[in-house]
């Protein structure tokens, strides 16, 4: 939907008006449509356009999942729940660490860990974040603590 109001800020050296371009509408596609419409032809030249929805950082939550022990040939898992302090399913970007220093991403595409056979997952749920870790490394007999950090955005996923 074209808007005739809002705020735009362009990158240095770019004209702010060029960030949104007025073009002629093709009535062949939609006979009931407007004669003209706006298209974001140069959206990448804008640092801010109020018609775009910006990700806004709400908070960072953190916790850890303890995997108590592991015996050769068995897997052990544990789950923790971290409250987000608000209702709703929030957009989230989650990471994990074994040393609280180097942080690896947790995503759906590659939950497998570079650490042997450690698996970590994190889900954004209504009012909370649930993190889960499993260790099925062959021959590892010591406990592991998996640190979890997630940046939560105001943007709702539900």
């Amino acid at each position: 939907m074209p808007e005739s109001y809002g705020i735009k800020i362009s990158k240095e050296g770019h004209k702010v008006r060029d960030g949104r371009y007025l073009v002629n509408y093709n009535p062949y596609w939609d006979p009931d449509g407007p004669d003209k419409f706006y298209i974001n032809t140069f959206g990448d030249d804008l640092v801010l356009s109020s018609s775009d929805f910006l990700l806004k950082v709400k908070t960072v939550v953190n916790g850890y999942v303890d995997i108590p022990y592991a015996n050769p040939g068995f897997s052990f898992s544990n789950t923790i729940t971290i409250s987000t302090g608000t209702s709703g399913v929030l957009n989230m970007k989650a990471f994990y660490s074994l040393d609280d220093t180097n942080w690896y991403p947790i995503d759906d595409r590659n939950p497998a860990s570079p650490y042997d056979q450690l698996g970590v997952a994190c889900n954004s749920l209504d009012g909370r974040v649930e993190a889960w870790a499993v260790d099925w490394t062959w021959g590892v007999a010591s406990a592991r603590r998996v640190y979890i950090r997630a940046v939560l955005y105001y943007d709702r996923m539900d």
Partner: protein
Amino acid sequence: MSNYGVKVSKVGKNVKTAANSDLTYKSSVQSSRIQMVVNNQITIPAGSSSGTVTISHGLGYTPVVYAEVMKSQVLPTPSYGTDYIACHFYANNSSVVIKMRIAGIYITYGASNNFNVCIMKDRLK
């Protein structure tokens, strides 16, 4: 508490009463911003089994990072496979580190992989 600033609501929402999730912009809330984008390649020469690329981000804290490593050929269970390329990355308070490991036939010929890294200003830690 400040009583000034800029707020822009979604179409159809009252800017004075809209929740933050219904605002496209609010000047008192940190919007997600990009620190740097890096497009590069990680290369492992023939005879080696691992390679590392370190990107200094200069933020002084651990940021949120999005990264895509192209041409990954990771077997479902890489620890049991013989031929694989495995890529991962991590971030800390000084840099983003891209690592690649190869095994089997890839060591014979070496391997290279493109990656795209987007380092945000958002603080993770």
